[in-house]
């Protein structure tokens, strides 16, 4: 075991994600005071164009494993590329992104290289013989602390650490390392774009009324449309759960695998507040959840939280507002 932390550079083909910078921030917070070195590892058919920028801004030395077989991503090729590297370098800690790339290769990579594995952590600390990883489980209602034996691989939730640019940092270097790859069983093909215009109104809306599974059915969607209708520049969005139920179209899904919105007001109806959903709406100016479960995690980011059933609260509220519209000459506070 050496004294190095390795960040798995999170890159979509040649594009380095914001998550990579968050991993650098997390690595820095652990390395501080522990005398650990930080390096990053990428694997592609070339050095990603923004590698220099990444190394310069984060101060992390980046190694990119290069082989034509890594052009399009597959777990198999990625693991085949990275495993021998880690077996040779014997890092103390490997940090990966908990997203559709990191979750795909990290658990198997940990097994193959003999690293203990914890996934979906929100915080990580170094202790004497172990790392302490903090994660949220049980539908967001319980905090779990795990002491993970060294050496370990830990994936971190998007947004768990924030990266701040530091002008005084010594720029890192970029090294390309040509590697051999054994022939793989998997054949990756070029990615496809699923971008649609659907739900585009969400980004411009001042008020977003969002549906979750707790809305229950299409009948109650009328209540949400009624609520949205009370505001001039509003749009309807939803959780993935609501999209899966057919309450809202997938184009209007808010979250990690949907749209990111930041309206002045976000009214979350029957939404539990999963990390993946919150990732897409946490920058809303005012957040108002309506949920009958007072322990729902969405209330943790609420400005004003309404503990009630959708079907009970919305008719009363909608009625009050539209009634108020009719007597608008009444003086307002």
């Amino acid at each position, binding site marked *: 075991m050496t004294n190095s932390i390795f960040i798995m550079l999170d890159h*979509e083909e040649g594009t380095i994600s914001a998550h990579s910078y968050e991993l650098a921030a997390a690595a820095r917070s652990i390395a501080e005071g522990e005398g650990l070195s930080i390096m990053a590892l990428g694997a592609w058919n070339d050095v990603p164009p923004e590698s220099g920028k990444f190394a310069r801004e984060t101060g992390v030395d980046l190694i990119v494993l290069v082989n034509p077989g890594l052009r*399009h991503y597959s*777990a*198999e090729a990625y693991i085949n590329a990275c495993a021998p590297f880690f077996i040779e370098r014997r890092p103390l800690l490997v940090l990966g992104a*908990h997203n*559709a*790339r990191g*979750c*795909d*290769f990290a*658990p*198997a990579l940990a*097994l193959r290289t003999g690293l*203990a*594995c914890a*996934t979906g952590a929100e915080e990580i600390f170094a202790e004497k013989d172990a790392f302490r990883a903090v*994660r949220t*489980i*049980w*539908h967001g*209602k*319980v905090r*779990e*602390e*795990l*002491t*993970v*034996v060294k050496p370990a691989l830990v994936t971190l939730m998007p947004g768990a650490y924030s990266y701040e640019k530091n002008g005084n940092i010594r720029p890192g270097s970029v090294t390309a390392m040509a590697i051999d790859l054994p022939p*793989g069983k*998997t*054949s*990756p*093909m*070029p*990615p*496809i*774009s*699923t*971008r649609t215009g659907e739900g585009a109104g969400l980004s411009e809306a*001042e008020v977003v009324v969002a549906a979750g599974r707790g809305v229950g059915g299409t009948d109650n969607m009328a209540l949400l449309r009624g609520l949205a209708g009370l*505001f001039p520049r509003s749009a309807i969005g939803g959780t993935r759960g609501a999209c899966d139920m057919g309450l809202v179209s*997938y184009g209007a899904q808010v979250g*990690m*695998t*949907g*749209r990111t919105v930041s309206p002045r*007001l976000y009214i979350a109806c029957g939404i539990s507040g999963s990390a993946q959903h919150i990732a897409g709406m946490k920058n809303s100016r*005012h957040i108002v959840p309506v949920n009958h479960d007072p322990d729902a995690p969405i209330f*943790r*980011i*609420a*400005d004003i*939280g*309404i*503990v*009630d059933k959708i079907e009970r*609260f919305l008719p009363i*509220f909608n009625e009050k507002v539209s009634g*108020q519209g009719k007597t608008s000459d009444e003086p*307002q506070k």
Partner: protein
Amino acid sequence: MRITGKETFGPSRLKKDSMKILVCVKQVADSESHFEISQDGKNIVCRAPTSYRINSYDEYAIEEALLAAEGSPGSSVEVISIGPDRVKEALRRALSMGAAEAHHLLVEDADLLTPESRARIIADFAAGRSYDLIFTGVMSEDRGGSAVGPMTAELLGMPLATHVMALSIDEENKSIQVEREIDGTRRHQLRLPMPALLTVQSGINRPRYPSLSNVLRAKAQEIPGLLPGGEARPGDFLTRKLTLPPDTRRGVLLQEDSNSMADKLLEYLHSISIL
């Protein structure tokens, strides 16, 4: 590959090969069930009445397996679950959706298993049973680790694709083509030979409701409890401590009659000049 000892199901069987499919299913407590953290901070104890159900991502996995099996007659879908006796309910639900066979691996305190131990139990079970495809959900709703599927693939030496949102099977070649959801605007495409392991993302299909005939069959079906094999490695986790998340709420929580909450919300929206 042919499964011997099973009757043929009509002419298409001659052209296409049947498949043997396994779905790994987890039973989870409903998100609204009441629970406590045990005194020692190691366990979550559910307070009655707790309703348990199939992890919703695994329902999509079951549906995808059933669709794949229906596409090549003679194929069969089996389900496996690790846990105490109550997980038989989840298995029975899978049978009533249309799975043919259920395997229960009996572990009383399954919540304490690490993802790796779970993967070792499943891999030990699946090894030598010549499954063509293994499906599971992209994550469990209670622990959200997304690790058991990929680790199982690694232990079995199977190619893997996670976050699968589309699947087509080319049986002649014994290969499959999948689309993986990366984010809201992008999917990866891969071709994998079978056998392969796939973890399924929600929305890939619409899980079916059990049919009456399957419900009746599932009721009558024996689900034997098996003892898990799979060599455990020394645990990855030395300790586990559970607590309630700190209250970081920045706003107010209203818990009163609907009418006065509506007044207060209206007042709030006035105060921020939205209404």
